[in-house]
């Protein structure tokens, strides 16, 4: 058994824009190993093989001469994944034979690329394991995936703005705290695309729109609470500056502007839990970065 490969979080829009990562661009030892997986690379430099997706199963067909293959469509806020499961994916096949459409499902699988003729490329997922989940898990997946995509978008814009290419760019990105794999991916992706910023712009718009479609239970039906939270966040950003701010003083400031204390607490707790804020000293809140 080999070390388990991580399952990347990626939206359909970025996934379907992936292309094969040529073996020549990978390290010699890796290319020589025939067991190494088929890797794809996205226009933003995400290198992937296994993916984990959560979305709505909207279509399911059995295909092939003896109906021995399942073809499924899983929709996320930016587009759709095409998923296959055949006789060599028994776990996923059994799952598809029992699931009802539509449903929220979570699925792991391996990316597959098929190019019947030059210029026409089909990218799909070969399913490994799948399960029915609830809307809360789907929403959480969208937010996780958006966060990782935004991290990538920021690193990508940073790379473009730096003006560096190749090895220098890779070193620059590593210096900026970008992971080794993404630094490598970005420097390859930038070489590949003629106008690299176009896709980044489209994906930004797509994610923005996708996030706005999320429906968080009853609490946000009025939108009032979400507005209050946004206000608290902006206020904290404004007041905390580089040094951070005393928590009690911040609560007073927010309450004096008409925000309920429990909303302030909720926002701060969630920022601390999510790692966007931290406490450099007890009672002091500060934004990361």
């Amino acid at each position, binding site marked *: 058994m080999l070390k388990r490969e991580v399952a990347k979080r990626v939206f359909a829009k970025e996934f379907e824009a992936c292309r094969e990562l040529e073996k020549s661009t990978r390290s010699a030892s890796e290319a020589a190993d025939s067991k190494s997986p088929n890797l794809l690379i996205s226009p933003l430099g995400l290198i992937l093989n296994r993916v984990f997706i959560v979305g709505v199963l909207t279509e399911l067909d059995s295909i092939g001469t003896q109906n021995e293959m399942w073809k499924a469509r899983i929709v996320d806020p930016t587009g759709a994944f095409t998923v296959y499961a055949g006789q060599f994916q028994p776990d996923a096949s059994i799952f598809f034979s029992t699931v009802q459409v539509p449903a929220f499902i979570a699925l792991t699988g391996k990316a597959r690329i098929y190019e019947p003729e030059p210029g026409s490329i089909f990218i799909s997922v070969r399913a490994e*394991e799948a399960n029915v989940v609830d809307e809360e898990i789907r929403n959480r997946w969208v937010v996780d995936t958006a966060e990782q995509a935004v991290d990538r978008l920021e690193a990508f814009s940073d790379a473009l703005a730096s003006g560096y290419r190749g090895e220098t760019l890779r070193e620059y990105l590593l210096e900026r705290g970008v992971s080794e794999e993404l630094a490598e991916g970005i420097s390859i992706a930038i070489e590949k695309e003629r106008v690299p910023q176009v896709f980044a712009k489209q994906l930004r718009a797509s994610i923005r729109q996708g996030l706005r479609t999320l429906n968080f239970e009853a609490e946000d039906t009025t939108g009032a609470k979400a507005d209050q939270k946004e206000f608290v966040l902006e206020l904290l950003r404004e007041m905390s500056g580089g040094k951070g701010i005393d928590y009690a003083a911040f609560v007073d400031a927010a309450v004096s502007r008409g925000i309920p204390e429990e909303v302030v607490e909720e926002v701060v707790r969630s920022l601390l839990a999510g790692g966007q804020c931290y406490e450099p000293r007890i009672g002091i809140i500060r934004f990361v970065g």
Partner: protein
Amino acid sequence: MDEKIAPHLEELTRALGDIEKTGIRAEFDKLLAFRVPPEVAKESILRKFGGKRKILKVKDLSAALKNFEITGRILDIGEKAIRPQEGVKEGPSKLYTGVLADETGSVVFSSWKELPGSVGDVINIRNAYTRLWQNRIRLSIGEQSLVSKVSDSSLPQLSELSQSPAKKLIDVGAADFSIGAVACILQLSHREVLIRGKQSKVISGVLGDETARLPFTAWVELPGIDIGSIIRIEGAQVRMFRGMPSINILSSTKVSSVGPEEAEKLVFTFESVAKDPAPMKIEEIASRDSMFDIAAAGNVVSVRPGSGIISRCPECSRVVQKANCRVHGKVEGVRDMRIKAVLDDGTGAMSVMFPRGLAETIYGKTLEEAEQLMFSDISKDAVYEDLRRILTGRYLAVRGNSSKGEYGVSFVAESAWVPEDDLAVRVVELLHRLGPDDEDYVSEVSGGGINLA
């Protein structure tokens, strides 16, 4: 000098440094004496000693490194005479062992050859390698290694290096054998153990600073020190236990309380260190050999076979197959439940073990309920299938210890829960990072609206 070989010597010097001192020149001459063409001799020397120099510091050492270069001051050296086994042709008969240090730490070394230096001298070693010996990283100097004495080194003096280096807890690892640290006592308990037939008092607990937590054991009394105390330790020993470093306070270790004035200047307090650990990226966990008492969160992407109801030997708790313990033979097994699952957060994946109490919580069924399912169903995998149906895809946060092995990261969970961070807040933050809508995009999708801009 022979005109034919001069350029090759020059190239070798460029690639490998002072070739006279390190004996590379002698190797090269030896090849020439065997009528090897200079060109070929140069190539083979470059291959052997590595054209690309990999220079490491002590802190960079990990198990199973090869072919690197390191420079350090000898803190200690001794020799062990090794009697060759009978019938074996005479091999190396002396092993030199000691401690080598640079400004980043110190490491135990062993050498099959006599070193060109003694205590206090700085030596440079090329073609060194490391291995794990008694759970500890050891720098090995073999027949292939080249060792030279460095006379003008800027490394700190012996007296300075002899003090155990002050470390942040996260940097304590298998390469350390003696360290110093400033940390806060988070847990503390007294127990009595038998040591060589004598009842002895032992204190064990957990230390923390702003970077990490580590278990500690004190074999001496710690008067005036309790949970919440911030202490400075010097000359504590690092022991490895199940791949996890642990700090040993011995009679030779200096322990002192950090006064309130000095504590004020520290970047941590008892309260900040005692807080529950925030989830970290699995990628980061995977970059360390082991981590103590940390948290992570992700999706259960796979429930592994072997999860569910198992049977254990009543004598030794080993998992029993077909009522046979591999040590105690035929036994009446005791039923137990466990879950092994892969947790993946998109940056990394790790195998998490949930012992019975936690397995029951995340499964939502007790061992007895699972047993009923097992007996009522014809499929022998009923419980496993049920676990997969309930857990696959779910979000879980876990807290416990991690260690890295051949198959990646293993994590033993001590608690587990469903993460409850507020999605609405994260969305607001994300929209802020994404910036305002692009004008052209807005006009494109707004349909009926008229865009005057």
